[in-house]
């Protein structure tokens, strides 16, 4: 009998010790939230490994799954910026984007610009795909647009270019020192992927402002933050460090992985 009580005491003390361990865990590891922390920098290398392994594992042309029309059961959930308030954007929006221009510049043979009308008259592709937000939710929708690859070819990408930087109109964050504008970037494999389109249509309607009008880039094998809305300029570069805080995108600057394929 006394043995049983000993065991009971064991259980009780271990429960207390166990919960103490968990409570100790609560803010003991908060230092990992600091982007300058050396341990975190080591851990971030796991994302580089993920990127390299996925690039080896997944063919450059391998498509993201496309769904059937019957699987569109709801509207596309807007998230992040839903109503940009920069003067440049509001001016264009007031004219229904008649004066909108998409520019391709940087490490290209020739800088090129296209109006929304020109983009709409280029060969179009429609795809019903699943949008996966980094938060954890998914939403299926039909996206219509023109593939990015041929547009990059029109500009003539120089051989030293390694990344596309996507500059956007939306002020995702307002700070005392001014607006922070959304930007993203990808490697050239994602940029030239057959499903990477400059979308202007959503679920057979004109792309609404809340989902990125007039142009939202779709990179279908990556999470939602790699699908920049309100896109106006694509810049070809060999180095991402001059942009934002140097991590290749607004969310990567906030500590999210750059690749976004997981």
């Amino acid at each position, binding site marked *: 009998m006394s043995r049983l009580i000993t065991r009971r005491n064991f259980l009780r003390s271990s429960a207390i010790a166990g919960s103490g361990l968990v409570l100790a865990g609560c803010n003991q*590891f908060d230092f*990992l939230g600091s982007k300058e922390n050396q341990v975190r920098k080591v851990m971030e290398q796991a994302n580089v490994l993920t990127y390299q392994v996925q690039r080896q594992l997944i063919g450059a042309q391998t498509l993201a799954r496309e769904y059937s029309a019957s699987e569109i059961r709801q509207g596309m959930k807007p998230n992040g910026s839903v109503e940009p308030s920069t003067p440049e954007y509001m001016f264009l929006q007031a004219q229904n984007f008649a004066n909108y221009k998409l520019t391709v510049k940087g490490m290209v043979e020739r800088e090129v610009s296209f109006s929304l009308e020109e983009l709409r008259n280029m060969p179009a592709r429609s795809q019903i795909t699943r949008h996966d937000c980094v938060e954890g939710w998914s*939403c299926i929708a039909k996206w219509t647009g023109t593939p990015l690859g041929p547009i990059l070819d029109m500009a003539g990408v120089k051989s030293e270019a390694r990344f596309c930087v996507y500059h956007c109109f939306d002020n995702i964050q307002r700070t005392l020192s001014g607006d922070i504008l959304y930007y993203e970037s990808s490697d050239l494999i994602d940029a030239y992927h057959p499903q990477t389109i400059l979308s202007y249509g959503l679920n057979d309607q004109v792309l609404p402002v809340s989902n990125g009008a007039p142009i939202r880039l779709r990179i279908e094998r990556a999470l939602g933050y790699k699908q920049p809305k309100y896109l106006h300029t694509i810049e070809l570069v060999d180095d991402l460090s001059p942009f934002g805080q140097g991590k290749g995108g607004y969310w990567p600057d906030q500590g*999210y992985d750059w690749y976004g394929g*997981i």
Partner: protein
Amino acid sequence: MSDVSGMPAAKGPLIYRQSIWTRVTHWIWAICLFFLLLTGLQIFNAHPALYIGQESGFEYENAILEIGAFNTDAGPRGRTTIFGQTFDTTGVLGMSGAAERPVFTAFPGAVTIPSYRDLGTGRVVHFFFGWIFVATMLVWFVASFINGHIRRDIVPGPSDIKGVPRDVAEHATLRFKHGRSYGPLQKLAYFSVFFILFPLIVATGLTMSPGINAAAPWMLDLFGGRQTARTIHFIVMVLLVAFFIIHIAMVLLAGPFNELRSMITGWYRASPGTPSIEGDKP
């Protein structure tokens, strides 16, 4: 430490029970699972709902679990809805912390890394330990296949299955036999963890990656969609937490000193009457 009972006849032999592979992988997993759990809850908090299907229903209902905070006449309350049943979980889920400064996260900061809302950091730490977890799994499977640990101790044989009722009775009365290998219930538990839960949590985790979805779309079909995979990932986490609680309880009940020694040094004191073989110590 030597036995103080003073009755050598009542003591079983000291046997070399756990190989270096088993011991090292055990402790690496323990560290990995600690961080994977606490960062996993951080990631869950970014969208505290689980669904069945390819997508998340915003304009229709396919959620089986939702945790959130809601305003009531008596102020905000934490609520958890599971299979349509709503429970007030104020203080634990949906709303926690001091009354004057409540925190409105699904799981409280005490069980997330970081303790505050930070999805980006949660993901960095989760994927780092995810890689180590999977690498350790590969090492364990190869080593345990070669050294016979899987065949000898993990896969239940016909005699183990027949021995289950007796083993249940022995566990119910807290009488444990410390043999050279594991008992029937131990084998079933470890077999389930290594051959069902570990592979399942890795596979459902990979099924949430849009990159992997392109390379292996069959995984989406296998698990019934990305959101179902996310739900299974969560359920397996709950099962692994349940395993952990039972595992610790059993270690404490079966003799924590002996059990810990075997997982650190490899040497384990068997029950009296266990036949000695070459290599045992008295």
